[in-house]
C-alpha cells in the first residue's frame, strides 16, 4: 500500500478532476436510486388511489426521463474525466520512469535486466493506471451505490431493510471466496495456454527437423498432452465461472422470494404500501451488481500494489555517477584531445580490482593500442574514459581536466565509442546516422557517410537514406552495419575516439570498405583501439599490454617485439590461434 501512496503525488495535479468525478458519480447514483422510487410514487400516489390522476402520471414519467438523461450525461462525463486523469497520470509516471532509467549510470544496467525494465515501463504502469481509474471508480461508484440503496431501503421501511442487511456479508463472502478460485483457475488456463503456444511456435520453426527425422507422431503426441491439459484447465475455469455467476443469481432470486414473503405480510397488515414493496423488490435486485464489481476490484488493488512496488523500487535508485555542482566546460572546437590516466585503480565490486595503478598517456591526435588476454581490463579502461563508471583511486584527465569536473553531457560530446556490437534503431538509415537529432542536417549525414565510404553502400539500398531498418538492422549485413556506426561517429564529430575492434567475419569486399571507413574516422582524432587482432595495432604510436588489470608492457610494435616479452609471445602464437582472421584494421597506422 505504501508504494501506491508514494505514487499519489502524481495524482495531485488532477485533484479537481477527481473531485468532479466524485460529484458526477453522486449525481449518477442518485438518479439510479431514484428510478424505482419514482415508480413507487406513481403507483402509490397516482394509480392505486380512489381518484387516479393521469396528469400526475405524466409528470412522473417526464421526471423519470429527465432523471435518466441527467444520469446518462453524468455517467458519460464521469467516464471521460476519470480516464483522462488516469491517462495523464500514467503518462507522467512513464516519462519520469524513462528519464530516470536513462539517467542511471552503467552499474545500474549491469544489475537490472532490460526485459525487466521494459516491463516496468510498459505493463507495470498500465496496471497502476487501473488503480487510478478502475479501482477508484469502483470504490466510489459501487460503494456509493450500495450505500445509497441501503439508505433508500431504510427510508422506505427500516424493519424490512434491517432484515435485508443479512445479504451484505453473505454476498461479499461468496464473492470473495469465488474470486480467489476464479483467479487460480484463470491463471492455470493461462499457464497451459502459454505452454501450448510455446510448443507450437517451436515446432513450426523446427518442422523441417521433425520431418527429416520422421518424428511427426511423437511431436503430435506431445502436443496432444499439452493441448489436453489446456482443455482441462479451460473447462475447469469455465465451470468455476458458471458456478459463481449462477450462485449469485440464485441468491438474488431467493432474496426476492424472501422480500415477497416478508413484505407481502407487511402489506397485508398495512404496515407498508404496495409501491414500497415494489421498490424493495427492485432495490434487492440492484444490490448484486455493485457488490460483484467491487469484489472484482480486489484483484486490481493487489496487482497494482505489486506493480507500484516495482516502479517505486526503480524510481528510488540514485545514479551512481553524478555531475559536479559547478562543472568545467570545454567547447568541442577547443579540445586538443589529450588523454591521461594517472594511477587509476577500479573494480566493479569492492575488493575485486579490475584495474590497478594504470598510467597511460595519449597525445592529441595519436593512435593508441590496447592489447591483452580476455578479462585483462581493456574494456574497463574504455568505460572509465566515457565515465560510465568513476575510478576508485587516481584520476583521468582530458586536456588536463579531471573527468569528474566535466558535465557528463559535455564529456559525451567530446569522447565517443564504436562498439563491437552495432546498435541500430527502428528508423531510416539517415535517422540511424544522426541518431534522430534534428541539429544534424541531411547534408551532414551524407557527408559523414561519404567520409567513411558508406555512401556508395547506402545508395544501393532500396530507398537510400530513407530505407527503413527493421528489427535491429536485420536487413543489413554486418559490414554495412559497421559502416553505419562509423558514419554516425563522423556525424557526431567527437574528438576522442575509442574503438572496440570488431571481430565479425566480413567478406573481402566489405572488409576493404570497412578498412577505408576506419581510416577516415581515425583522421584528426585521438584514437584508442582495443585490439583483438594484433595486426590492427602494429603501426600504433604506442601499444599498452594489459594483464590482470595492470599495464605490464608498453611501447611501439618494434620495441615490444625486441623486449621478447608477453607481447612478442602473443604475437608469435596469434598466427596459429587465429588462422582465418583477416587484417581489417591492419592498414590504419600506415596511412596516417
Amino acid at each position, binding site marked *: 500500500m505504501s508504494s501506491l501512496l508514494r505514487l499519489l503525488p502524481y495524482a495531485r495535479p488532477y485533484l479537481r478532476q477527481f473531485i468532479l468525478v466524485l460529484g458526477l458519480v453522486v449525481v449518477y447514483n442518485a438518479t439510479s436510486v431514484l428510478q424505482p422510487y419514482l415508480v413507487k410514487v406513481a403507483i402509490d400516489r397516482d394509480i392505486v388511489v380512489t381518484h387516479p*390522476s393521469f396528469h400526475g*402520471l405524466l409528470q412522473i414519467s417526464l421526471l423519470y426521463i429527465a432523471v435518466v438523461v441527467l444520469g446518462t450525461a453524468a455517467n458519460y462525463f464521469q467516464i*471521460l474525466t476519470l480516464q483522462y486523469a488516469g491517462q495523464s497520470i500514467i503518462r507522467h509516471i512513464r516519462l519520469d520512469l524513462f528519464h530516470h532509467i536513462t539517467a542511471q549510470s552503467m552499474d545500474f544496467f549491469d544489475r537490472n535486466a532490460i526485459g525487466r525494465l*521494459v516491463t516496468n515501463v510498459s505493463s507495470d504502469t498500465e496496471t497502476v493506471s487501473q488503480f487510478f481509474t478502475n479501482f477508484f471508480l469502483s470504490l466510489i461508484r459501487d460503494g456509493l451505490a450500495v450505500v445509497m440503496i441501503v439508505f433508500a431501503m431504510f427510508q422506505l421501511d427500516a424493519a424490512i431493510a434491517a432484515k435485508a442487511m443479512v445479504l451484505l456479508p453473505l454476498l461479499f463472502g461468496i464473492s470473495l471466496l469465488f474470486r480467489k478460485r476464479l483467479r487460480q483457475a484463470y491463471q492455470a488456463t493461462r499457464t497451459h495456454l502459454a505452454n501450448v503456444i510455446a510448443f507450437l511456435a517451436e515446432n513450426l520453426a523446427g518442422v523441417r527437423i521433425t520431418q527429416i527425422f520422421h518424428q511427426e507422431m511423437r511431436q503430435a503426441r506431445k502436443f496432444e498432452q499439452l493441448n489436453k491439459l489446456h482443455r482441462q484447465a479451460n473447462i475447469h475455469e469455465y465451470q468455476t465461472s458458471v458456478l459463481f455467476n449462477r450462485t449469485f443469481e440464485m441468491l438474488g432470486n431467493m432474496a426476492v422470494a424472501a422480500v415477497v414473503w416478508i413484505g*407481502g405480510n407487511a402489506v397485508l397488515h398495512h404496515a407498508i404500501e404496495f409501491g414500497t414493496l415494489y421498490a424493495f423488490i427492485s432495490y434487492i435486485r440492484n444490490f448484486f451488481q455493485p457488490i460483484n464489481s467491487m469484489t472484482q476490484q480486489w484483484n486490481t488493488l493487489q496487482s497494482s500494489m505489486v506493480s507500484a512496488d516495482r516502479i517505486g523500487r526503480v524510481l528510488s535508485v540514485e545514479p551512481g555517477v553524478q555531475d559536479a555542482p559547478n562543472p568545467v566546460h570545454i567547447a568541442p572546437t577547443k579540445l586538443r584531445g589529450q588523454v591521461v590516466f594517472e594511477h587509476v585503480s577500479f573494480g566493479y565490486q569492492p575488493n575485486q580490482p579490475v584495474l590497478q595503478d594504470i598510467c597511460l598517456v595519449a597525445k592529441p591526435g595519436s593512435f593508441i593500442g590496447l592489447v591483452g588476454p580476455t578479462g585483462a581490463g581493456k574494456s574497463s579502461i574504455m568505460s572509465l574514459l566515457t565515465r560510465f563508471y568513476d575510478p576508485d583511486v587516481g584520476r583521468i584527465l582530458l586536456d588536463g581536466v579531471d573527468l569528474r569536473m566535466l558535465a557528463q553531457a559535455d564529456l559525451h560530446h567530446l569522447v565517443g565509442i564504436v562498439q563491437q556490437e552495432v546498435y541500430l534503431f527502428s528508423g531510416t538509415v539517415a535517422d540511424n546516422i544522426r541518431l534522430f537529432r534534428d541539429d544534424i542536417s541531411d547534408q551532414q549525414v551524407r557527408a559523414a557517410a561519404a567520409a567513411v565510404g558508406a555512401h556508395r553502400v547506402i545508395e544501393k539500398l532500396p530507398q537510400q537514406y530513407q530505407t527503413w531498418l527493421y528489427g535491429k538492422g536485420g536487413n543489413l549485413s554486418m559490414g554495412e552495419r559497421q559502416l553505419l556506426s562509423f558514419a554516425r561517429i563522423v556525424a557526431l564529430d567527437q574528438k576522442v575516439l575509442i574503438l572496440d575492434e570488431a571481430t565479425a567475419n566480413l567478406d573481402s569486399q566489405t572488409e576493404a570498405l570497412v578498412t577505408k571507413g576506419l581510416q577516415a574516422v581515425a583522421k584528426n582524432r585521438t584514437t584508442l583501439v582495443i585490439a583483438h587482432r594484433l595486426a590492427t595495432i602494429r603501426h600504433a604510436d604506442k601499444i599498452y599490454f594489459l594483464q590482470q588489470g595492470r599495464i605490464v608492457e608498453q611501447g611501439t610494435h618494434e620495441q615490444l617485439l625486441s623486449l621478447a616479452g608477453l607481447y612478442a609471445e602473443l604475437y608469435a602464437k596469434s598466427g596459429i590461434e587465429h588462422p582465418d582472421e583477416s587484417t581489417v584494421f591492419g592498414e590504419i597506422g600506415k596511412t596516417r
Partner: protein
Amino acid sequence: MEETSEQPAHLLRQFAWTHRGSYSLSILSILVSEAITVQFPHLLGDFTDALQAGRLTGRLVVMYSLWLLLVGVAYVLLYGLGQWWNGRMGRVFEYELRWRLFNHWQTLSTAYFRHRSIGDLLNHAMNDVRTVREAMSGGLNMFANAVFLLAATLVMTFRTVSVRLTLVSIVPLLFLPLLVIYWGPRIRNASRRVQEGLSDMADLTEESLSAIRLIKATANEGVEGDRFGQRVQEIVSRQMSVFRLQASFQSLIPLTGSVSFAIALLYGGYLTVTHQILLGSFVAFTFYLVMIITPLQQMGFVFNSFQRGSASMARLTVLFGEYADITDPPQPVSVSHLSGSLEIDLPEFAYPDADVPALKDIHFTVAAGQTVGIVGRTGAGKTTLVNLLPRIFDPPARAVWMDGHDVRDLRLQVLREAIAYVPQDGFLFSTTIGENIGFGKELAHPEEVAEAARQAAFWQEIEDFPEGMGTVVGERGVSLSGGQRQRAAMARAFVKDAPILLLDDSLSAVDMNTEKNILANIRRLRQGKTTLIIAHRLSAVRHADFILVLDEGRLVERGTHEELLHHNGIYATLYHLQESEKEELA
C-alpha cells in the same frame, strides 16, 4: 488425401452431429429454463392483483414466495446446466480443431513455411480457433437465451398483459442490438490501436535500453526521451478515443432501456388508471421489460460473435486448404532399405516463388560410402542442393536418384529414414539434451545417446551441466552457445546412423581443434557410408573423396583436394587466401 474431410466447417458439422444428443438436451434445458423464468413477473403480477382484490391471505403470501423461490431455483439450475454443457463442448471442439491444425501443419513442406511468419500462424492456431469456439459456445448460449427468452416474454406479455402496451414500449429496445452491432467492432478496432501503441512504446524502450551505452556515450538521452514521449502521447490519445466510444456505448445502452421503461410507466399507468389492465399486469410488465434488456443486448453480441467466428472460420479454411505438396508417390517403389548411392542429374531448380533458378546444370554421382565436400561462397546454392535429397524442397522429376530410384518415387518414410541431417543453425527443441540427441530414434538407449555425444565432442560439457543429459535446453533451461547447439545436432544425426549423412556447414561455430576431432570421428563412424559435407573452412573437406565447387548455382569445379589445387581455380584461390592469412600472422 481426404482434403474435404479436414475442412473446419465440415469438422464443425461432424462435431455437432456426433454430439447431437448432448446439444439437443442442453438447448432443451435452456428452452425450459426460459419458459420457467418468465413466470417470475407473472407471479408478481398475480400477487399484486390478489392484494388489490383483497384476496390475499398470509397463507397465499407464503405460497407466492415459495412459487417464486421454486421458479428462481429451477431457472438457475436448468439454464446453468445448459450453459455449462454448451461451453464445455465448445472447449472440446476448440481442442480438437487445434490438434487437427497441428497435425495438418506437420505434413506441410518447408516451401510453405518459408514465407509465413510463425507469429501469423500462431495467431491462427490460438485466436482464430478461440474465436470459433466463442461463437459456438458463448455465442450459442446467448443466442438460445436471447431467442427463447424474447419469445417466451412476448408470448407472456401478449397473453397476460397487453399487446398494445408491449408493442409500444418495446420500440426503443429494438435499437439495442443495432447499437451493439455498431459500436462493438469500432471499440474493438480502437482497442487494437491502443495495443499497437503500447507495443510500439515497449519496442522503443527495449531498443533504447539495449543501446544504453551508445546513448550515454553520445549524450543522446534527451533525444531518446523525446522519442519515448511521442509514443506515450500517442497512447494517451488513442486510449482517449477508445474511452469516448466506450462512454457513449455504456451511456446509450441503459438510456434505451430507461426510455422504454418511461413509456411503459406512462402508457401502462394510463391503461391501469383507465382500468384497461390490472395493476398486477402493469407491475408484471415493468419486470418483463427489465428482463428482456439483457437478451436484446445479447442479440447484438451474438451477431458480432458469429460474424467474427465466421471470419475466423474462413481463415482456418484457407489454412486447412493448403495441401501438402511433398507427399508419398501414388505408387511408391517397394524398397525398404537404401544403401546410399546418389546420382544428381539436375538441369535446373528454382524455388516455387522465384524467377531465377537457384541451381543449374548439376550433374554428379556418388558411390555408396563416399565422402563428398561441397564448397562455395554464401548464396552459391550449396544448402539448396543438399535440401533436394530428403525432399525438403522437391526436385524436378528424374533429377535426384538414390540407389537408382528417383527420390520422388520413394515413400517419404523410406527416403527420410535413409538420411541424417545436421542443419546450419543446430536447431534444438526445448526439451532435455538427451531427448534432443535421441530425437530420431524413439527408444534410443541412454548409452547410445551418450556415445553419440562423445563422438560429437560434446560429452564432457554435458557432464558439466547441472543435470547432465537431463538438462533442459532453450528458454526454460540452459542456453547453449552456437557451437554447443551444432554439436548436439551432430550427435542427433549420429544416433540416427543413416546410410547418408548431410552436414550443412554444421561445424562453423566449433573451434578448430574440436572440428578436427569431430571430423576424425566422422571418418571412422562413416566408414562405408555416404557423407556430404558443406563447409566454409576448407580444412573440413580436405579429406573428402572428391570436392564439388559451386558458384552462382552452377557446378564449376570438381575433384580431390590435390586436383583442385592443381587446377588453380576458385578452390585454389580460396585455399591460398585461407592459408596466406595463417602465414601472414605467423
